[in-house]
């Protein structure tokens, strides 16, 4: 049953440490990586581009969320100061909005289409649009262990908000289809297993082993003609098994090679089962998983809900007594500023992690874009006429960084979130003429 997830998958307990393998040692191919596994030839291929979105609901402390200047000379308001170490690799983008999320009431309708830009439906039947991260996953996710990883540090809220929009809209930002969100993975251990331990493929092997035995038993009883028919089945089973095994073996081989070379590796212990008790541990381990997954090319798309819309997270370690949502109703308070800064610092942390991972001449961060956003600007006013955004990484040099961009004065047609998404998807190699409510790219991105 649903809640027993907690005790699930002890099968991989004790597997221990997984190392991040720089791209050359890992298997799946950018450029000609097959050669790289077998030989020492260094063949710089085009590096994969990755995209991650970090979400914190309920708006920011507006007074301390600002930046000015550019590059090394960029200056930050108090909330953005954690970005100082990576400031040449970020963009602070203001003034964008999601028109379809305005005028429908507060909270869930401000969130349910944040990444899709299409109208969403009230009442018992949910309907919206596929989100841009999942669209990317569909288009470019086939080559990796998982098309995307969808994480959250907070349980979804069920039921309905007073606007009569389902609370699922406020609890999920990644939508795999117009009718259903991707379930968020809250358990770091399960997220880790599905990315690094191929638990899904292990299960498939066990199913295939069993049916193979049954088919072999049948085969022994029959004529040569029928044997041929069963052999077709058996050899298909064996081929699929071999595929799975090979993927696993390649991974081991790559790990061994990396070890032999004594490379400095980013390594990570498998997280313990269960939910971390401390929110600080939870957010950090989720960021580590994304970093590791990006470096080892287990996935190229990630989304992470740090705090959902209507969040009921508590922050005793920040000396705030109210829960998140309650605190956001007084968003100019010092307490709420600390909450926002805490979440933004996760972006800084993840960006720094990725930037410490060399890849070719640059770093993994250089080939990624990590976007931090909220569903509104001010929680006190429930104002989403603009939303705060910070991106980190340059998507292989295609996205100029170190800039402060403000589109608020550009006019509603020229400050659409979906225009930003079109531009980002272009750089990820997915070119669309239209997405959500936009058919133009953001100017000067």
């Amino acid at each position, binding site marked *: 049953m649903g809640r027993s997830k907690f*005790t699930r998958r002890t099968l991989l307990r004790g597997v221990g440490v997984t190392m991040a393998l720089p791209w050359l040692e890992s298997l799946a191919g950018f450029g000609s990586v097959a050669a790289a596994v077998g030989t020492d030839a260094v063949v710089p291929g085009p590096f994969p581009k990755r995209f991650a979105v970090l979400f914190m609901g309920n708006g920011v402390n507006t007074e301390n969320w600002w930046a000015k200047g550019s590059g090394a000379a960029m200056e930050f308001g108090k909330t953005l100061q954690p970005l100082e170490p990576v400031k040449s690799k970020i963009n602070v983008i203001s003034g964008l909005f999601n028109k379809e999320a305005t005028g429908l009431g507060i909270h869930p309708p401000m969130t349910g289409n944040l990444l899709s830009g299409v109208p969403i439906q009230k009442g018992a039947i949910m309907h919206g649009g596929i989100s841009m991260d999942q669209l990317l996953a569909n288009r470019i996710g086939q080559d990796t262990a998982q098309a995307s990883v969808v994480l959250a540090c907070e349980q979804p809220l*069920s039921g*309905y908000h007073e606007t009569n929009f389902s609370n699922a809209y406020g609890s999920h930002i990644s939508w795999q289809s117009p009718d259903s969100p991707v379930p968020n993975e809250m358990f770091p251990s399960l997220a880790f297993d599905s990315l690094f331990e191929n638990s899904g493929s292990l299960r498939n092997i066990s199913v295939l082993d069993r049916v193979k035995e049954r088919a072999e038993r049948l085969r022994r009883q029959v004529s040569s003609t029928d044997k041929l028919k069963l052999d077709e089945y058996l050899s298909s089973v064996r081929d699929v098994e071999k595929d799975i095994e090979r993927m696993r073996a390649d991974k081991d081989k790559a790990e061994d090679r990396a070890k032999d070379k004594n490379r400095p590796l980013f390594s990570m212990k498998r997280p313990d089962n269960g939910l971390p008790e401390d929110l600080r541990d939870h957010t950090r381990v989720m960021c580590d998983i994304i970093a590791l997954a990006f470096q080892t090319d287990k996935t190229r798309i990630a989304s992470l809900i740090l705090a959902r819309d209507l969040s009921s997270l508590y922050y005793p370690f920040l000396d705030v007594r109210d829960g998140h949502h309650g605190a956001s109703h007084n968003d100019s308070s010092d307490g709420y500023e600390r909450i926002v800064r805490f979440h933004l610092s996760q972006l800084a942390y993840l960006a720094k992690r990725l930037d410490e991972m060399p890849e070719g001449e640059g770093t993994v961060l250089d080939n990624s874009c990590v976007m931090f956003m909220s569903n509104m600007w001010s929680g006190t006013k429930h104002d989403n006429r603009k939303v705060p955004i910070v991106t980190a990484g340059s998507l292989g040099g295609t996205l100029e960084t170190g800039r402060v961009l403000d589109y608020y004065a550009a006019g509603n047609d020229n400050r659409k979130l979906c225009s930003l998404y079109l531009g980002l998807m272009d750089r990820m190699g997915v070119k669309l003429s239209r997405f959500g409510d936009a058919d133009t790219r953001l100017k000067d991105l």
Partner: protein
Amino acid sequence: MKHGRFVPALLVPALLLAAADSPSARGADNARKGGTAGTMTVAQLDRQFESTARPFLQTYCVSCHSGAKPPADLDLGAFASTADVLKDGHRVRAVLDRLKAGEMPPRVAKAQPPADARRGAIEWFEAAHNYDIRRNAGDPGVVLARRLSNAEYDYTIRDLTGVDIRPTREFPIDPSNSAGFDNSGESLVMSPALLKKYLAAARDVASHMFLQPKGFSFAPHPMLSETDREKYYVQQIIDLYHRQNIDYADYFQAAWFFKHRVALGKPRATLADIATAQKVSPKYLNTVWTTLEGAKEDVGPAARLQAMWRELPAPSRNQPEAARPGAERMRDYVVQVRKKIEPRFWNLAAGKLDAREEPFLIWKDQQYATHRRSFDPDQLQVDGAVRPLKPERLLPEPGSQGQFGPGHTVLVTNTPGDPDLVVSAAQLARYEAAFARFASVFPDMFYMEERGRNYFDTTKDRGRYLSAGFHNMMGYFRDDLPLYELVLDGAQQKQLDALWFDLDFVANVSSRTYIQYYLFARDARALMEAGRPGGSQPPDEEITASATMAKLEAIYLTLGKGGSDVALQAVRDYFKWADTTIHAVEKARRDAEPSHLDALLDFAARAYRRPLTPDDKQELLAQYRSYRDKDGLDHEAAVRESLVGVLMSPELCYRVDLLDSAKAIRPLSDYELASRLSYFLWSSLPDKELLAHAAAGDLHRPRVLAAQSRRMLKDPRVRGLAVEFGGNWLDFRRFEDIASVDRTRFASFTNELRDAMFEEPARFLTDVFQTNRSVLDLLYATDTFVNPALAKHYGIPIAATQPNEWVHVPDATAYGRGGLLPMAAFLTKNAPGLRTSPVKRGNWVVRNMLGERIPPPPPVVPELPSDEAKLDLPLREMLARHRANPMCASCHARFDSFGLVFEGFGPVGERREKDLAGHAVDVAATFPGGKDAAGVAGLQQYIRERRQDNFLDNVFGRLLAYALGRSLITSDEATIQDMHAKLAATGYRFDSIIESIVTSRQFLYKRGQEDLAQR
């Protein structure tokens, strides 16, 4: 037309091929009746081979047909003796057919045999062929074990799970075998890529499974997330509500009907009979009847109602509707009075706990739910006086400020002096009792299905079904007591109870509701978690532990200090309810586990189409155990994983009943026979009844077989045969992919019409099968089936309006329809878009209906213009010119005429007088043999007079090939001959054809390993 590749003659069933070439069809008749000319002994055959056949082959054939790579893979140089020839029985047919058709030697060959030499050779091959038929009669042939076709897999999953998941949507399309069917081992292969899809499909199907208190079921959608599970049960509960009739007028009318049952012609009907006929609840009708006809009421609303009842008119003759207006007035009266006396309950609050707290909302829900059959005595106007409002009623409605509601409980306010409410002080007690009786029979509401955020205003925020009305949280509240007590019978009550319990059991609703409540409990939670440093939420188990609950309850009672006793009791009741319910569900879940394993074994047995062996059972259970113990899966995940294993096993994915596990030819076991039958007639697995006969061991008995196949033909699953057999045979299987229609020119060709075109033959065939019509109806019937889209296309007026409303049109001939021939699907499929194609349509008739084999055309043929509108001459004249060329004529003469009779139908099968270029259409044609006819009627007449046997042979042969899952072989021809002789007496009823097939030796036996080795 599209020029197909060489088709080996063997694969086109039966003898009709030869018939096609001689308009008199004598050859076919002779052969079928065992043709005297063709009966020879082996010795005779040997002699004549040396004297006639061999010299003929040497002279006219082997110069091409020999060597390493002979044309058509036919090495006639190897035919050195009769024995050699017969080794390769089916080649005899090939040679015979070509010789008869005059196709070989080819016209371009220099050496052409004189007529008598050809005749001699034909005679010999015919004799050899007949000898071969007799020698092999009843040989079951090689039937390869194979995987299920995509369609069979989908139907099998449907019947196994009870929901139509169609997991093969993303599979590649199955190729068909040379008999045109996609159900044989010749064409159905497995590959690693496909196996991966099977694996994904198995996981998809398993994701629809959900565990119940006893066993498990499958939902039409995945049931992995709790919201999906919730949705599923909420829908089931609401569907059950909606199935009940709660319109008072219908009850009054039914009561009236019963009262006047004699006059209305039902003298013997009981009240229950009338209830059933009038579609109302027998139980509630009885209550209403007693209220109307029982003890006379003196005062109050029931007295008034009884008076209205007595005023209803008596029916004169046949007037079942005479009382309707009166019954509706009675209903309106009840509803009107009921509204005036509805009880109201105030909102609770206590200390720091406001009215939005769950315990208080639930308390209020409960007050309403348990008072729906009561009334508010304060609304009675004693001697005309309106009683003053109680102040607590004005407490604001929780969470309903601003745009979300009226802000306070909607009060019932009545006009002073309302005659419905004015009562005399002296008789107050009597009135109150009368109102109570009335209110008890006529509740203010039977059930609450949908609640807005505000208790009373359901207009703004609709869509929260069965909701408890919590502020921001999900939560369900059952409010259907009047329906339960007054309307539902015992079985329905049980069903409803079970659904509500399952909602909790399956979707974990109580526990989740409580956890949400905990997480939203701002102040209380802060107190609870004081000392918990991290700020992350506690795990669910901790929140729902009894001790934690008790702690929260204590905090709540403290926060509510100073509140009324009622309010504090509501808090205590809430926690008691939560603790009891949540832990009862947890226990029920644990207790149900063994039943899920039983269900797993049962599922596997049905999937394997046979009882499980002890080994099978042990293996499955061991697998489950290992998922739990070794892999650490929870119970549900382990059951689901085990299901994936069953779904992937060869016993499900393959027709293992076809495996030849014995040495020699042997009869099928009864279980094997059950599978063979069900995959033939249903394209799916055997049902309980078939398996029961298999278990009893009597399925193979001819009488049981015949009875079972008749039963199966009547079953709706026989649509599998209509779509899979019919669709392949008649080429409409993939009609939904048709891309040739130019939709800008034929805007009427919508997806809806396209789907209807596909559906028409499928429904027609299903009807022929289910109602046991003659197969000749396929050709000659006057009836068909249409839905609104198709009726419009055909110009048939019908009353139906819904796309899925199909009506039977008994005589559609006035609209040019009836039977298969003029169905739009075939006319459209065989037209290239902007013009008709008499060539394709004619070829479809002679090939698919009459079973002729048309040789491929020469590589260079002139193309006809693609757009009819741009033709200078009518199409028929273009074709006539084409036929003027003798090379073309030899074939086109065989089918053009069959297509020309359809010229009255345009490119999408629409009737027309003029073609697209404005030429008047002409439907006249001269059929082979010189018969003049016009239109579809003329074609039907021609077939009836001259070609009916060809049609029958074709149908028999194709059905047999489909039933056996292989191409026809020589041995089948005797069976077909036999069917022909036997079935004329039944008028070719469909069940007699099926009976002939399923009792044939080919169907009942399978070859063994030795038989194969020898051949």
